[in-house]
């Protein structure tokens, strides 16, 4: 499976550098290495979810309990979580660091991913969620640190889109 181990490790190391102590996740192809890294790390609490919106509640609990957390999900999982993002995270000023695998963009071979790809950024903009695309390995750590800093300072959700050229080795 040509999901990039090297770039997954870059992302994981950047999360660790941000003092992330809990990661919630729902498996998806591009996230397999990241989830395994969290599972193998005795310092990390990995919460495997049944559905992504649960992760909003878990991250809210983590924040109020005094710990930094991150959410790993596919863009369809982000779309699934919208009510929690609005009526918990935004309503209660909860920072969320959302790492969203961006399926359905140019290069997507799976027909079932294509609709979600088309609406992900419009929905992020409609929700007024700041976001950046993670594409270049050299910038990943810096972008993750910036996103985490803004989430904590603004007490709001911030999204990072894990793009094909970063996650998938052609």
């Amino acid at each position, binding site marked *: 499976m040509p999901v990039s181990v090297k770039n997954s490790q870059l992302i994981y190391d950047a999360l660790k550098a941000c003092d992330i*102590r*809990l990661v919630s996740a729902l498996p998806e192809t591009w996230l397999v290495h990241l989830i395994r890294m969290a599972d193998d790390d005795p310092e990390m*609490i990995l*919460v*495997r*979810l*049944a*559905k992504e*919106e*649960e*992760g*909003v*509640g*878990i*991250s*809210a*609990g*983590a*924040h*109020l*309990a*005094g*710990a930094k*957390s991150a959410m790993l999900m596919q863009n369809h999982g982000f779309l699934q979580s919208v*009510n*929690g993002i609005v*009526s*918990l995270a935004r*309503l*209660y*000023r909860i920072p969320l660091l959302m790492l969203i695998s961006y399926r359905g963009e140019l290069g997507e071979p799976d027909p079932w991913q294509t609709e979600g790809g088309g609406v992900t950024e419009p929905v992020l903009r409609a929700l007024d969620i700041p976001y950046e695309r993670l594409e270049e390995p050299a910038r990943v750590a810096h972008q993750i640190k910036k996103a985490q800093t803004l989430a904590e300072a603004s007490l709001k959700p911030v999204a990072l889109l894990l793009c094909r050229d970063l996650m998938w080795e052609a």
Partner: protein
Amino acid sequence: MLRIDALRAVYPSLERCIVVTIMGAVSAELQSLGHRPGFFYLLHSMGLASSMGLGISLLRPELQVVVLDGDGSILMNLGALTTMGRYRPCNLVHVVFDNESLLSVGGFPTATATGSDIAGMAASAGVPRTATVRTVDEFTAAFDGALRANELTTLVAKVEAKGPPSFLTDLPMLENRFQFQRHLRNLRAGR
């Protein structure tokens, strides 16, 4: 059993816990008995109170966490039972006040009115201790037992579909949120 009577019966224990409630009658009735800095009222996001309680309990194992949930709320997030059952934090007691209806929006019956069994679903999801109780005495005994058990418990309390005339209180949501966070921080610092 009335929910307010059940809450009153265990209030002395709740005061010593970290409590996350759902919106509506549960929030208003607990506040009517007396707000405490360790009480957080999730006034929207139906279904996520249980997930919040799970997040707090996993990160703060030294705290006793209680979620005061409802049938309408947990039915919106049944997957949360499987996530709780997977991680089984021993410092989490999950109470579900089951009035078999969506009381705050007009009393429409939920699926528990036609036989869906939340305690049964929790047990099947892997929650190690579950019970369904119908009287205040049973509830008090089961709640105290759950606190002593040191094991994840889902306790379903069958209550009447009655609540206070208003769900509004004079505690703003964000004041509650920041006070609760500060309280958890002070507990860690030993203040």
